[in-house]
């Protein structure tokens, strides 16, 4: 692919997915610096992939999430003493002034944080409902089978219904 086309394709992807990936990593890490670092890693790899590989990625959306997740796991492995791999959502609500009045919402988020375990339940639901990934995309992003992703999602929803 000519360099110009690669750059155009990358620009398109960057505009479309940067914020989603940034938010996803921020949800995972609860740290803006980590989110920036992982985004840099993810998009650098993406650009390199576009430049070097002739193979077309079928689902870029899922591929980017997978890439970001793997980069984050590596980051956690390296900095395991300092970074938690548990997803916490409460701080998102607290940090947003607009949502301060929405007591019910805050309560639900706190319940999700404390009672919805293991962490993969939260991750699947975030990917599916917040970032609007299909079951196949969730499976691809988490490196599991589609059936497994569907099952985790179902279990997570069942558990949530019970605890809310």
């Amino acid at each position: 692919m000519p360099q110009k086309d690669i750059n155009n394709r990358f620009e398109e992807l960057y505009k479309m997915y940067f914020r989603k990936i940034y938010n996803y990593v921020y949800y995972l890490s609860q740290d803006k610096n980590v989110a920036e670092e992982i985004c840099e890693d993810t998009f650098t790899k993406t650009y390199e992939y576009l430049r070097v590989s002739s193979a077309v990625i079928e689902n870029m959306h899922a591929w980017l999430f997978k890439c970001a997740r793997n980069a984050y796991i590596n980051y956690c492995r390296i900095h395991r003493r300092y970074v938690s791999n548990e997803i916490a959502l409460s701080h998102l609500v607290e940090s947003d002034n607009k949502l301060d009045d929405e007591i019910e919402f805050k309560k639900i988020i706190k319940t999700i944080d404390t009672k919805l375990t293991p962490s993969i339940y939260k991750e699947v639901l975030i990917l599916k409902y917040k970032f609007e990934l299909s079951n196949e995309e969730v499976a691809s992003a988490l490196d599991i089978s589609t059936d497994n992703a569907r099952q985790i999602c179902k279990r997570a929803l069942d558990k949530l219904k019970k605890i809310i």
Partner: protein
Amino acid sequence: MKIKQVFKKLPSIKPNKEFENRLYYKIISGYDGGLKSINNFRFLKYLIFSLSLNLIFLIIIYIFQATHISLDLNTKENFIQLNNNKLATNYSVKINTMFSDEVILPTYKMESDDLISVTLPPGYYYAEIVGRDGDSTRTPLWVSSLI
């Protein structure tokens, strides 16, 4: 409140706009040719590395030149000729006997193309050559009595 809504309602965090733009241009320019390209950067690294190696090599040669004087030993006449045929200047040379440290030729400053001749009885001597940086090297000299 529905579960889907709860997750949809999760606030989106706005990334630092400057970072967002900077990262885009960093990635693009990092691969897009020019001096910032990774390949060119590698080439530059190798270039700097080889140039610095060359420079070190030149410095070593220069230091060697600065302390080296070619010594011509003429055994027939029993004298030593010291010929400063190198480019460097400001040497000083001293010739002593090897074992008793008797000074044969006191410190003698040499400029480029200088030639000194010292007639000596057979024996072992050394020439102490002091470079401009104060480092000295000793070169053994032997005047034979056989011829």
